[in-house]
């Protein structure tokens, strides 16, 4: 009964999304207040029904109702409650429902937090979001109904893939989806602006905080996903460049470009056409990512879960949404020309340069991801494009980005003097290179990659310090605290996020240059040495979890004769799927992780043990955290609220005038 209610609620949500799509758009066209006013309640009602539908599906998982096919294939009565709940989105159908729910949540957020928007603009935004939502809910209902019954019901479920039974997987998908889908708001704002022909600084200002918040979610989501891969996949890698990861990374790159482009459009009125294109592009890549992951075109050529009907439906959706937006863009873009002019040496140029580089980087990831498909389509052989390609492309593209990123803030808007600016940053730049070379020699790992990485990181840190000092000096004579207070939240946001990149680069470079790995056969009592640490194998004991049996290794970690930790890596066998799984054990420190995982047990009772030493790896995620934190600061800037209040006053004044 409850699954049927959920199904019914989802159908109602679809109806409401259609209402939300059509009525306000017509209203905005005809300038009818009554029609435009329908958007808000329709969006909120839609959210209610999707939420209800989602709750019904979760209920089927929690109560182990295995007459629901999805629960039967993705849950098990012995699965811990937390993983029953997260099992809802650990599959195709459920994750689509989560997609639709986050879109709806964003829409409701727009209706609540952007009340100051002019009615017609708001109506168009809601209309566009409603269209996207209708596309996705109908996709779910038509091709991937999560409430499909299995009659007669299964006696026991098949359980969630053990890899997904992990705390990281509890928050990773919701964060990632909130990020992915969040770009729909920026997209809807851009389309609404194109439709209304109103593409001014106000539009950019309205759009900016939404874009930034979506970017924060995406950053955090990617970071958590990478952390999950690091400790769950059992061999200490943190990024694999696989299609699923690339699907989230491409929108991130373009979203980063969009954030910066919006800043220029708001402050200087320039780049408007480019900004609109980026807004369309970032969301298009989110959709494309969904297509790649969900259609099975790339990831699993022979997975039965992927139905060609699904691929076709979502491709059609893609063509309609992106095709129509790009057509609209082509029709309206010539109205977007002009705007603030700027000199060849100016902050605008630096931002434009980075924008182009980020876009090119994003395109190169797309190409690498799709290239095997192209070759296969042309019957030129089966290939795989691995990390070496992406690294070979990425390092040269990102190096100028990082250099420009810290140089740009030293430049003035509009026009600046190149010689003066270079003179300003030259000491920091030279010092960075020296530091890079020096540290590389100090850690005895002199490769061009290490030197480059360390120099870039030093450049980011030194330039950040110089920026902050310079900013504090601006108001000479004022007290220290008033100087600090004079710095806006969005400036702190920029500063933190850029510093985060520096921290991130330190992590990537150190791990890439100095990590150590050893696979070794160990019997009870045997010891092994790696990077100055001593590992003693104290045997393996039987252990049992809620839905698995495990062999738990006992490995004593010590350094210089001092015992630091007892590491307990596990080899688990999950009952329902009979699937073996490696669970690594970590000793985490600020400057290094020690990472141990169990391989196979050999016939003589010994185990194959993998030992890893990972210097500075946590800096990778610390860097991401700083970036996300920077985004939060930027979005929370009081300026937006002040401007919003002003816009609201203007809008209500207009309304008063109109009704008078």
């Amino acid at each position, binding site marked *: 009964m409850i699954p049927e209610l959920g199904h019914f609620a989802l159908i109602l949500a679809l109806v409401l999304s259609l209402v939300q799509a059509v009525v306000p758009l017509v209203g905005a066209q005809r300038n009818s207040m009554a029609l435009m006013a329908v958007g808000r309640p329709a969006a909120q009602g839609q959210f209610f029904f999707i939420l209800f539908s989602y709750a019904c599906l979760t209920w089927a998982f929690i109560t182990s109702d295995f007459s629901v096919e999805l629960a039967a294939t993705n849950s098990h009565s012995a699965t811990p409650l937390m993983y029953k709940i997260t099992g809802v989105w650990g599959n195709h159908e459920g994750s689509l429902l989560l997609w639709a729910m986050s879109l709806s949540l964003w829409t409701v957020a727009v209706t609540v937090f952007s009340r100051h928007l002019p009615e017609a603009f708001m109506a168009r935004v809601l209309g566009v979001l409603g269209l996207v939502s209708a596309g996705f809910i109908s996709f779910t209902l038509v091709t991937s109904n999560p409430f499909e019954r299995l009659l007669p019901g299964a006696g026991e479920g098949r359980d969630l893939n053990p890899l997904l039974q992990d705390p990281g997987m509890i928050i990773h998908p919701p964060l990632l989806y909130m990020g992915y889908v969040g770009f729909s708001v920026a997209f809807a704002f851009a389309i609404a602006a194109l439709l209304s022909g109103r593409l001014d600084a106000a539009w950019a200002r309205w759009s900016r905080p939404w874009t930034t918040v979506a970017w924060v979610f995406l950053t955090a989501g990617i970071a958590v996903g990478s952390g999950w891969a690091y400790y769950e996949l059992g061999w200490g890698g943190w990024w694999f460049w696989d299609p699923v990861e690339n699907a989230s990374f491409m929108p991130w790159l373009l979203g980063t470009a969009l954030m910066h482009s919006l800043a220029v459009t708001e402050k200087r009125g320039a780049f408007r056409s480019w900004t609109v294109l980026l807004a369309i592009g970032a969301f298009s890549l989110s959709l494309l990512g969904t297509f790649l992951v969900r259609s*099975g075109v790339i990831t699993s050529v022979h997975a039965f879960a*992927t139905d*060609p009907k699904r691929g076709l439906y979502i491709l059609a959706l893609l063509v309609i949404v992106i*095709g129509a937006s*790009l057509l609209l*863009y082509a*029709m309206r873009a010539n109205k977007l020309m002009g705007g603030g002019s700027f000199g060849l040496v100016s902050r605008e140029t630096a931002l434009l340069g980075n924008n182009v580089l980020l876009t090119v980087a994003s395109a190169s990831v797309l190409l690498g991801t799709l290239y095997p*498909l192209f070759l296969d389509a042309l019957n030129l052989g089966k290939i795989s494009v691995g990390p070496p390609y992406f690294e070979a492309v990425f390092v040269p593209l990102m190096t100028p980005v990082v250099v420009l990123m810290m140089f740009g803030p030293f430049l003035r808007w509009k026009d600046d003097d190149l010689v003066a600016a270079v003179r300003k940053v030259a000491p920091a730049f030279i010092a960075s290179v020296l530091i890079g070379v020096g540290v590389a020699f100090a850690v005895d790992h002199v490769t061009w990659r290490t030197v480059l990485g360390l120099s870039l990181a030093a450049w980011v840190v030194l330039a950040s310090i110089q920026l902050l000092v310079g900013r504090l000096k601006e108001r000479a004579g004022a007290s220290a605290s008033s100087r600090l207070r004079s710095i806006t939240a969005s400036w702190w946001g920029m500063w933190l996020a850029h510093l985060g990149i520096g921290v991130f680069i330190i992590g990537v470079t150190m791990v890439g240059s100095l990590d150590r790995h050893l696979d070794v056969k160990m019997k009870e009592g045997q010891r092994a040495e790696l990077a100055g640490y001593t590992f003693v194998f104290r045997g393996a004991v039987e252990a049992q979890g809620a839905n698995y049996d495990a062999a738990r290794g006992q490995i004593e970690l010590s350094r210089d004769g001092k015992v630091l930790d007892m590491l307990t890596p596990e080899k688990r066998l999950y009952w329902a799927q009979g699937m073996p799984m490696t669970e690594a054990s970590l000793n985490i420190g600020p400057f290094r992780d020690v990472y141990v995982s169990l391989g196979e047990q050999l016939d003589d009772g010994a185990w194959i043990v993998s030992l890893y030493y990972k210097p500075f790896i946590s800096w990778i995620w610390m860097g991401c955290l700083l970036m996300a934190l920077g985004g939060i600061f930027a979005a929370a800037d009081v300026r937006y609220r002040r401007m919003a209040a002003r816009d609201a006053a203007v809008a209500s004044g207009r309304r008063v005038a109109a009704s008078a």
Partner: protein
Amino acid sequence: MKAKFLVPLLLFFGLAGFLAFGLTLNPREVPSPLIDKPAPKFSLARLDAPEQQFTLESMRGEVWLLNVWASWCVACRQEHPLLVRMARDKVVPVVGLNYKEVRGDGAINARGLSLEAETSMAIERARRWLSDHGDPYQVSVMDIDGRVGIDFGVYGVPETFLIDREGRIRYKHIGPITPDSLQNVLMPKIEELRRAG
């Protein structure tokens, strides 16, 4: 409208074209090399009477289905009720090819098992599963080591082969049979073959 603003749109259409083409590559439609070729010969023990062997010859003159299954296969559970219904309505004779019953099951470490032990375990498991879920098969045979499955080019369970009166494979269905695929794909082909013979 200026031409240069159409560039993104054109780029996107090019990409979409490739993606559409990529979809058609989806190997659900893998043209099996065996199509229209005589089915590989085999002789395997029957599940109901392991001392007896089953060969293709015994099905000569009939249009029938060879359904590859195993008790550990989850997707089989999905198509099973449909197979049972088909058997009840006598739609078409279905022969079951039980594929790697024991060694295919990830939960069992079959390495130390002797072939006899594995066979008796497999028969026990397969029988229990059929008595639990219903037995839709005219006869089921045991492919303990998966050799016959390999001859048929099986690389996932379930798969279903449509075999004509002369013993030629005419169609291969990958994945679980659904009411939709039965009605729109399999049945028309079966009827065509029946008419032809």
